[in-house]
């Protein structure tokens, strides 16, 4: 794929300003426009997935009160909810959205190095989303195999959407992976090759580090999903037996022999575990910059933070089988994977300490982005600590496949990254649009989301302790659960609907800001990083006008002793920032 771009690529620094509406906003090769396209599409599918989760919660909280939910579409809802949220929302939004917007601006380059390929990446992503959405409407509906798509059930009788549904799902994933690869090659090459003068690796903001390492993880891990998707397609359509063993499906022999469902699980989680960090590392990076900027203090232990990102990225490839402790794989693997999994807690804990220590002796401005950032630390601590339960092979015995797992991964991979997404949108909104939003509305949005989600997921852990299994359409009567478990489920549902409704505040705020919001200052948070120092506000095509910026310092020169301002932008030369000199705003 990359060759297409090699052959067609414009000369290095030639940037023709696109003049028609179509080339400016639709077939745009500008990384900022592509970022917004990625972002809007991701949020759109995310809203679909949010709607699906509301349906699931209705059934769980008030079983069988809603005639539009039956076991068939319930399993379709959980599958599509999971798949959309993990892949089509979070992966696309963090890398395609924030990655696209921030990498060139933060690194001081004019655009991605292969703008044409970047544009193709978005359109392929859109195509994958369209194929995914179509799968809702084909005969039999979308697949209901669970987002992990485990064979045999993903392609054998008894599962919804076992014909067209699963085929379209696999095809959509394959297209997504192509899209991601085109984007990912761009992000990596841009970070490596297109940084402006003076932007050494260790002067890069942590946002870029997080996105950079996450992209490398994605490039190496997504092939595992592609391989398993293709092999499953073969099993389904050509009747090979890669994953399909000899079975008696509903009394009928479908003719498979000897395949291994465990093989699929290995391939899937070889992708699936790094995928967690593909989402988490960009969130780590972005939140670091939010904390530092709004605490007016350098990020504490920057080097440790960089190495922690790298260490987590590397370790994420040797922990995958902790998703498979009770899968029937060789049980001796449990020792190895429990150990590696718990080791990964160490660099992760260091990141948490350093975020908190950044607040220590800071000058904390509790603006909307900062509220979300601190909220993230709280939820991430919670989700990270519950990970120590599940990663420890013994504790996984009672807790695996229960609501504890659901609560854990929603805390760590749902709530936490989404809080960062909101924080980051509020933080960079003035840069992207040139407008300010309503601070009060933003605070309301934060409080309702933060408290609401905690009310959903804290109790959910306890349902898991009690032994409520996940992926149950209805619990029915059991001997071992107290009747009050159903009341708790109802309460969780009410919290969930409340949180879903609270998201309206966000959209109202943003639309209001676009239509009527006041113009924002070019650097409203007095941040040091390059994207706030563009000559135009919001930045135009090519980002930097006639001259590329030159970087003279790291990204965290906040409250440096001896200087009047409490921040020194990265492009201010050492001798141009003497004590007492005023250089607020843009350069």
């Amino acid at each position, binding site marked *: 794929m990359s060759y297409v771009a090699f052959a067609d690529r414009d000369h290095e620094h030639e940037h023709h300003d696109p003049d028609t509406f179509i080339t400016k906003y639709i077939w745009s090769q500008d990384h900022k426009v592509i970022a917004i396209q990625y972002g809007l599409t991701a949020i759109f599918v995310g809203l679909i997935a949010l709607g699906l989760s509301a349906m699931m919660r209705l059934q769980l909280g008030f079983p069988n009160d809603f005639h539009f939910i039956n076991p068939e579409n319930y399993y379709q809802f959980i599958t599509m909810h999971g798949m959309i949220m993990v892949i089509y929302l979070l992966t696309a939004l963090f890398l395609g959205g924030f990655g696209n917007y921030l990498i060139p601006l933060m690194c001081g380059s004019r655009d991605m190095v292969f703008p044409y390929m970047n544009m193709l990446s978005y359109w392929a992503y859109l195509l994958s989303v369209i194929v995914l959405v179509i799968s809702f409407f084909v005969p039999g509906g979308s697949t209901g195999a669970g987002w992990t798509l485990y064979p045999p059930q993903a392609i054998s009788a008894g599962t919804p959407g076992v014909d067209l549904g699963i085929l379209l799902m696999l095809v959509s994933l394959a297209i997504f992976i192509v899209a991601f690869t085109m984007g990912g090659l761009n992000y990596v090459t841009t970070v490596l090759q297109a940084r402006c003068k003076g932007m050494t*690796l260790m002067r890069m903001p942590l946002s870029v580090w997080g996105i950079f390492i996450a992209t490398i993880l994605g*490039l190496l891990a997504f092939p595992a999903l592609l391989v398993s998707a293709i092999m499953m397609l073969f099993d389904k359509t050509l009747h090979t037996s*890669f994953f399909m063993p000899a079975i008696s499906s509903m009394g009928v022999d479908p003719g498979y022999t000897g395949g*291994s469902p465990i*093989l699929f699980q290995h391939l899937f989680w070889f992708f699936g575990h790094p995928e967690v960090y593909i989402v988490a590392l960009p969130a780590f990076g972005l939140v670091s910059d939010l904390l530092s900027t709004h605490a007016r203090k350098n990020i504490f232990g920057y080097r440790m933070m960089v190495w922690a990102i790298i260490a987590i990225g590397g370790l994420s490839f040797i922990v995958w089988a902790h998703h498979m402790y009770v899968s029937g794989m060789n049980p001796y693997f449990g020792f190895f994977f429990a150990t590696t999994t718990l080791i990964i807690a160490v660099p992760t804990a260091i990141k948490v300490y350093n975020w908190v220590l950044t607040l220590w002796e800071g000058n904390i401005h509790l603006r909307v982005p900062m509220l979300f950032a601190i909220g993230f630390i709280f939820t991430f601590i919670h989700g990270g600590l519950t990970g120590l339960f599940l990663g420890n092979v013994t504790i996984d015995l009672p807790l695996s496949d229960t609501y504890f797992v659901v609560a854990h991964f929603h805390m760590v991979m749902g709530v936490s990254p989404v809080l960062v997404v909101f924080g980051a949108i509020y933080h960079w909104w003035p840069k992207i649009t040139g407008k300010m939003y309503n601070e009060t509305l933003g605070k309301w949005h934060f409080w309702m989301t933060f408290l609401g989600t905690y009310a959903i997921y804290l109790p959910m852990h306890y349902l898991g302790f009690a032994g409520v299994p996940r992926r149950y359409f209805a619990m029915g009567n059991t001997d071992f659960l107290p009747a009050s478990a159903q009341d708790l489920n109802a309460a969780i549902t009410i919290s969930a609907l409340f949180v879903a409704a609270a998201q309206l505040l966000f959209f109202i705020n943003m639309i209001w800001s676009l239509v009527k919001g006041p113009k924002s200052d070019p650097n409203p948070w007095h941040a040091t990083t390059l994207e706030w120092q563009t000559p135009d506000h919001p930045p135009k095509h090519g980002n930097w006008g006639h001259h590329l910026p030159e970087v003279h310092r790291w990204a*965290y020169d906040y409250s440096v002793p001896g200087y009047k301002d409490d921040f020194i932008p990265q492009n201010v030369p050492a001798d141009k920032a003497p004590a007492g000199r005023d250089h607020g705003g843009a350069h």
Partner: protein
Amino acid sequence: MTIALGFLAIILATLLGWLLKHTFNVAPWETETVSDTAHHGPLGGVDKTTLIALLTFLAVVSSFFALILSAYALRMDLGDWVPMTEPQLLWTNTVMLIAASIVFQWTRNAAVNGQTSRLRPGLLITGVLTLGFVLGQIVAWQQLQNSGHYISSNPANAFFYFLTGAHAVHILGGLYVWARATQKVVLGTADVAAVRRSVELCTIYWHFLLLVWLVLFGLLLST
């Protein structure tokens, strides 16, 4: 999964070594004289940006094949595996692919040395050889089909079709780029520098796919 892990270990070790070199013993908060670490200039005749993108892409493709090989190794140990006899034609195909790689290297050297007259025959010969390889693979498939070795009859067969098919798709992707460059050369509309860059990158890609093929072929023969 050992194959995939071994492959990843190599990639990650390279990456880590490089990152440590650039990040260790650096105290970034100390403002120092500006040094330009991003390279834009050509290196060894090849534009470094496209080279890095290509190498990254090759890492992705390697990961893809390493994972299939891992699956191959795991699946092979299960009871129903019946080893397959590869068609003799694969030897001929292999020779063609090796020849294509050699000719591409020869063309590249000529392009780098400015001997543009060799571009046209070089590109055409490589293309014919590579196309011959792909057609040969299709004929080999045909032969297998005729002798009753269907994709669904045994996992060994399934992997054979999958591996050769995946490899052929990558070759076809390369041929697309080759076709664009060749078209320009044949029509005489070529910008010399651009064609040279294309040829250089294609050469790397061809060598890489030859290497992948040799690994695959070796594996298929030995199991």
